[in-house]
């Protein structure tokens, strides 16, 4: 099947650019990356057509196709880790999104990274990332997902730390890798529990066994540990892994720092693809989540809602444009998680699942649009801080329109894409849990507020841009992705998503959004209005508001001191309290014991070295003495 070429083309680009990239002209390296991404996209479109039209829905539902299965690590006849490719509407949607956004980002980077010395290395890393993400999405085996999961983490590390001469970038890359790796510990344990319980790691079989009352599911449900069944534990641990990758509270600390990487990298990885891997993972295992009782899904729901609210609050106080967008991403992924957590299996209950993936789809477009536009703005004013920006709407007209479209989409204002997906999420939340719905509604309002705060501060605020002398050069490689993504953000909402992507393959009937969506849209406009009031013209209002909120504002501004708490725990508790004493024991007691042995051996040997004096006659005397002793013993004392 040609499906295998979808991830293999970027891999080939990685190998090519990694080995011979230095010898190529930068433009060539860039186009190699772009053409492989384009090739993957075309193959993905072909595959979608093939699946949707030629194979088509069977018995009313979209089937899951398992392709190219081969035994990769056979342990014995019962347990074997196979590699396979799983095709269903969700994975096809993901490969379309990944290939498309990757293509747009690589095209954009041609212009953005111009003059960069390690141009081909950059494209090699981007291709590696694309390969890893595509592999993750197409994986048909839970362990295969884990393999590509780690590869994605590696690519992210390489890309965040791209400017490795900057200490902050190096620290950020390490932080991202360590936090996600820490979460992956939970993921691995969860995989082992699920694999042991279901007697297989193959996704199709595993889900079959764990979503119906089968022998394995009964066994797992009856094994209780600390009050929860082993199935729940396995799923919760897997969710921990997903939460780390998707920057959910409390494992979110790496995402804002990851903005040290180049902006197109942020657009690709930390907006559209890698951070949604956690959502994708939960979506993949959704039948098992739904079967296992209220606890795992409840955890997903509350963590999602909490993260959405937390991130939205912090985003309102940040002044670095990329950090605002980073917290915005965390918030939107919180929305996706809470939609998944509010979802059920079967019929209209599945709205949450479809809404979550729909939001993933639309979010990819408008978030990468926002990041790329931010890249252009940063390039222009040579600073990430909002303070350096203002009044740019005349200087950057195209960027202005695109950024505005992105903000309208993320705020959920009709008819842009975000409206449709966000309304579905809110509807699913409303049907599941009113409290969650209120939290989501409030977060949505905050989203609108902070995004338009950003928008007004960059493009309005002042009438003349500060320090901007001439109109910037326009390049088609940077403008085209912006336009394409903007148009997608505008029309992607019209895709009848729930009919195509759903938890069990059966289309979910779209529910009319009419009267329900009045309140959320109103809330969004209120947010917009407040932002406009505070930020459209340069005034003292925002600062005075910040002072009035006093300590409350300060706590949020410092990101709820979560980073400080983590630093305290790791440095003072773990390093000083656990690691240092352990090192002392290792040095003084364990090594000391061995060294003591050695020292005493040396002392004894010093004492008896006199026995080997080199004097021949002394040797002879010992010889004969020993002989005499032996003779007496053997002749007189040894009684057989």
């Amino acid at each position, binding site marked *: 099947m040609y499906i295998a070429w979808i991830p293999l083309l970027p891999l080939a680009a990685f190998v090519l650019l990694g080995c011979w990239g230095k010898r190529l002209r930068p433009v060539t390296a860039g186009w190699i990356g772009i053409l492989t991404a384009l090739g993957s996209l075309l193959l993905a479109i072909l595959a979608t057509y093939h699946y949707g039209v030629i194979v088509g829905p069977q018995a009313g539902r979209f089937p899951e196709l398992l392709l190219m299965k081969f035994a990769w690590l056979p342990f014995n006849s019962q347990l074997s880790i196979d590699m396979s490719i799983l095709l269903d509407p969700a994975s096809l949607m993901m490969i379309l999104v990944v290939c498309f956004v990757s293509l747009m980002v690589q095209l954009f980077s041609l212009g953005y990274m111009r003059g960069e010395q390690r141009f081909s290395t950059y494209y090699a890393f981007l291709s590696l990332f694309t390969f890893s993400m595509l592999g993750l999405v197409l994986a048909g085996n839970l362990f295969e997902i884990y393999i590509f999961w780690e590869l994605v983490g590696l690519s992210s590390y390489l890309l965040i730390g791209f400017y490795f001469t900057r200490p902050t970038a190096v620290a950020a890359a390490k932080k991202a890798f360590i936090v996600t790796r820490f979460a992956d510990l939970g993921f691995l344990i969860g995989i082992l529990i699920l694999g042991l319980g279901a007697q297989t790691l193959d996704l199709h079989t595993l889900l079959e066994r764990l979503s119906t009352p089968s022998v394995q599911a009964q066994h797992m449900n009856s094994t209780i540990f600390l009050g929860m069944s082993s199935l729940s534990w396995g799923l919760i641990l897997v969710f921990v892994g997903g939460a780390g990758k998707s920057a959910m509270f409390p494992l979110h600390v790496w995402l804002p720092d990851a903005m040290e990487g180049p902006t197109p990298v942020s657009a690709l990885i930390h907006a559209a693809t890698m951070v949604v891997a956690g959502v994708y993972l939960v979506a993949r295992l959704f039948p098992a989540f739904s079967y296992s009782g209220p606890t795992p899904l409840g955890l997903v729901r509350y963590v999602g809602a909490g993260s959405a609210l937390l991130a939205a609050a912090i985003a309102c106080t940040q002044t670095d444009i990329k950090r605002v967008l980073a917290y915005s991403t965390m918030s939107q992924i919180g929305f996706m998680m809470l939609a998944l957590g509010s979802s059920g299996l079967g019929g209209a209950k599945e709205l949450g699942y479809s809404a979550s993936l729909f939001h993933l789809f639309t979010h990819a477009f408008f978030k990468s649009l926002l990041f790329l536009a931010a890249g252009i703005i940063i390039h222009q004013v040579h600073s990430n801080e909002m303070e350096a920006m203002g009044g740019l709407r005349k200087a950057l007209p195209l960027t202005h329109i695109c950024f505005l479209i992105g903000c309208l989409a993320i705020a959920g204002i009709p008819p842009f894409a975000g409206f449709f997906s966000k309304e579905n999420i809110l509807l699913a939340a409303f049907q599941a849990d009113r409290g969650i719905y209120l939290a989501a509604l409030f977060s949505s309002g905050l989203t609108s507020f902070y995004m338009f705060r950003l928008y007004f501060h960059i493009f309005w605020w002042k009438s003349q841009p500060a320090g901007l002398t001439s109109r910037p050069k326009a390049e088609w490689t940077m403008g085209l992705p912006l336009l394409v993504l903007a148009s997608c953000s505008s029309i992607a909402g019209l895709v009848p998503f729930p009919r195509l992507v759903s938890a069990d393959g059966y289309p979910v009937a779209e529910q009319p959004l009419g009267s329900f969506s009045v309140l959320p849209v109103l809330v969004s406009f209120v947010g917009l209005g407040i932002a406009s009031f505070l930020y459209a013209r340069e005034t003292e209002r925002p600062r005075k508001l910040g002072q009035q909120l006093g300590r409350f504002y300060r706590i949020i501004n410092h990101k709820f001191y979560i980073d400080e708490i983590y630093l305290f725990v790791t440095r003072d508790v773990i390093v000083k309290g656990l690691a240092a004493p352990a090192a002392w024991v290792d040095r003084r007691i364990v090594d000391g014991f061995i060294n003591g042995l050695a020292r005493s051996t040396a002392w004894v040997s010093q004492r008896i*070295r006199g026995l*080997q*004096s080199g004097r021949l006659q002394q040797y002879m005397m010992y010889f004969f003495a020993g002989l005499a002793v032996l003779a007496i013993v053997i002749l007189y004392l040894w009684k057989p």
Partner: protein
Amino acid sequence: MSEIPLTHILFVSTALFFIGLYGLLSRRNLITMLMAIELILNSVNINFLAFNRYLHPDQLHGVFFSLFIITIAAAEAAVAIAVIINLYRTHQSIDVEDAGEMKF
């Protein structure tokens, strides 16, 4: 004349053995040590001959073995002299205290 008891002869050979051993362990001159070794070998010879004469008078095994010992003692003395000469060439001395390199 009456037979000399076997034990008398054994006393003599034992005394010779230990005199030889004492000489081996306490002399400094290598040639003198060689002479002590010969003394030990000869004491063993006396032992063999005595046992032959007193315990198995109709056989000659002891005599034959003594002949062997004499021959081997001669050959071994030759080899020992060669070693001593080599030692002299390196150390310019045949004092056993000067040849003390095999130590810690």
